[in-house]
């Protein structure tokens, strides 16, 4: 008997891509803590950036001498290179706890610690000098950025800045131009499974769409073009009230890890169909300081046997079909938002790329591992897609560099609040949103 033919069903095959992980620089298994302080990472950062800026200085201002801070002479125009330090009046200081004038109730902490009196100081290993002049705006810069400054020392002992040189966008490996097919990478973050605002149906819809269990043939065809999924942090939210220093009853213990179990079930569904990377975020069970280490595979007993499942560091970098991706779960940009200002979050993202440093405020205000011989947050090669997770709203920008670099900057919104995931096309770096809503009546 003939096999029954059920109309002309097209079998969609998912497209494949070559994946190459570049997370080794963010792993700290080989590091050994010997009591070092953060001066080591600042030294490594200054040295590597200074070598770079010294090479750019002759093309910027050819006839000016380059000198160290201690070698400044009054009235002599020169170029100095060093790390910026922003002195901020409102920056919370641990010594405030010991202040005698502290009122009983804590003051309402402002979200942004900027103040009109903030001033910048440049520091290198020989000394520091206060910066004056309007060429360098304290509102834009933060502590930890390495720049070259052109100016001269004033009679007041300050350095009057006339011009600033940032490192600029790093060199980029050329994108392959022969990609004919549309291949999409889905980026999402802020699932917050376990929180009150998370809607399980929304995430289930997303998973069904990605795995091709949703929609008609056309939509399945679109889903078959998804080659990779990246979850950028804050996938779970634990009930914090249970973690209060007391021993947990066994009933509480099971409620504590419910969110992770639920996440594992969903990741299992995704991993069965497409390769997925999961990055830790602020609320995830990973270490606090950057670079956050991959979530332990024991947390995902259902998903970890799949070779399509990858637990990654935060920040995370990988190559997909020779398109370079670089992204974080948002801590670096959120910290910049506290200590500087910009019209949009993408301005912060662009600045980190121009400063060639993912998280300049680390270790000053952002937790960081005290590396001794390197600074893993330095961006050496320009990515093609640079994403930041856990932002308030979706935003994207195509940034063009002076040497032909082309970067797509993406702010991924929190999925639990917006129901929006982002899809990036590897062929032309264009992106669009995947929006999921479970409300039928919008009244």
């Amino acid at each position, binding site marked *: 008997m003939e096999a029954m033919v059920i109309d002309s069903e097209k079998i969609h095959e998912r497209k494949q891509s070559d994946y190459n992980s570049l997370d080794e620089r963010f792993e700290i298994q080989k590091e050994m803590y*010997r*009591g*070092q*302080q953060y*001066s*080591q990472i600042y*030294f*490594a950062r200054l*040295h*590597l950036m200074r*070598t770079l800026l010294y090479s750019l200085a002759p093309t910027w201002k050819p006839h000016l001498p380059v000198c160290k801070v201690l070698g400044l002479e009054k009235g002599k125009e020169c170029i100095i290179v060093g790390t910026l330090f922003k002195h901020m009046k409102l920056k919370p200081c641990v010594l405030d706890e010991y202040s005698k004038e502290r009122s009983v109730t804590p003051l309402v902490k402002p979200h942004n610690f900027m103040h009109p009196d903030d001033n910048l100081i440049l520091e290198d*290993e*020989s000394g520091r000098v206060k910066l004056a002049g309007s060429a360098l705006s304290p509102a834009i810069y933060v502590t930890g950025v390495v720049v070259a400054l052109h100016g001269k020392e004033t009679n007041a002992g300050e350095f009057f800045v006339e011009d600033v040189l940032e490192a600029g966008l790093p060199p980029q490996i050329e994108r392959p131009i022969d990609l004919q097919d549309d291949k999409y990478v889905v980026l999402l973050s802020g699932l917050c499974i376990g929180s009150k605002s998370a809607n399980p149906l929304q995430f289930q819809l997303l998973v069904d769409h990605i795995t091709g269990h949703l929609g008609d043939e056309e939509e399945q065809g679109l889903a078959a073009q998804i080659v990779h999924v990246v979850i950028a942090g804050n996938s779970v939210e634990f009930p914090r009230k249970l973690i209060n220093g007391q021993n947990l009853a066994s009933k509480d213990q099971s409620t504590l890890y419910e969110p992770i179990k639920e996440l594992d079930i969903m990741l299992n569904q995704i991993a069965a169909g497409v390769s997925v990377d999961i990055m830790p975020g602020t609320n995830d069970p990973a270490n606090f300081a950057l670079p956050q280490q991959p979530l332990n595979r024991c947390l995902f007993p259902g998903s970890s046997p799949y070779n399509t499942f990858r637990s990654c560091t935060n920040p995370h970098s990988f190559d997909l079909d020779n398109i370079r991706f670089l992204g974080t779960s948002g801590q670096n940009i959120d910290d910049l938002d506290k200590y500087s200002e910009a019209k949009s979050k993408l301005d912060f993202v662009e600045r980190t790329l121009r400063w060639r440093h993912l998280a300049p405020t680390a270790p000053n205000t952002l937790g960081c591992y*005290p590396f*001794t*011989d390197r600074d893993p947050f330095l961006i050496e090669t320009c990515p093609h897609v640079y994403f930041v997770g856990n932002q308030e709203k979706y935003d994207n920008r195509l940034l063009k560099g002076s040497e032909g670099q082309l970067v797509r900057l993406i702010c991924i919104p929190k999925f639990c609040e917006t129901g929006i995931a982002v899809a990036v096309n590897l062929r032309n770096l264009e992106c669009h949103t995947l929006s999921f809503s479970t409300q039928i009546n919008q009244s």
Partner: protein
Amino acid sequence: MASTAKNLKGFYKQTKSNITGGISKSKPSSRKVAPKHAAAQGSDVTQPAALISHGSLDLNEDYDKEEEMLRQFDMNIAYGPCLGMTRIDRWERALRLGMNPPNEIERLLKTGKVQQDCLWQGRV
């Protein structure tokens, strides 16, 4: 202040030169000393003239030419901060960052007969 008394006793070392036993000067390969009180060191006021009785100042007992060279390497700011790293790690970092540190330092450190930690390790 028992610890201070112990330190001062070791500080005001008065050895009789013709006794075979007594306090012998030894060169420790890995130094684990209690933090020396900075105020008790190197101050001329507290040092009586008796210390110079042997013809040389009795400060910094185990401090020879090689250690001096390593200390100069520690203090050189071009190679970055020295605290929190062993000397050989700092030398290797300097090499990796392209600073061309002198090879004699590496040779000395690889012999293993010198102190591997920097000058201030355990003291600050």
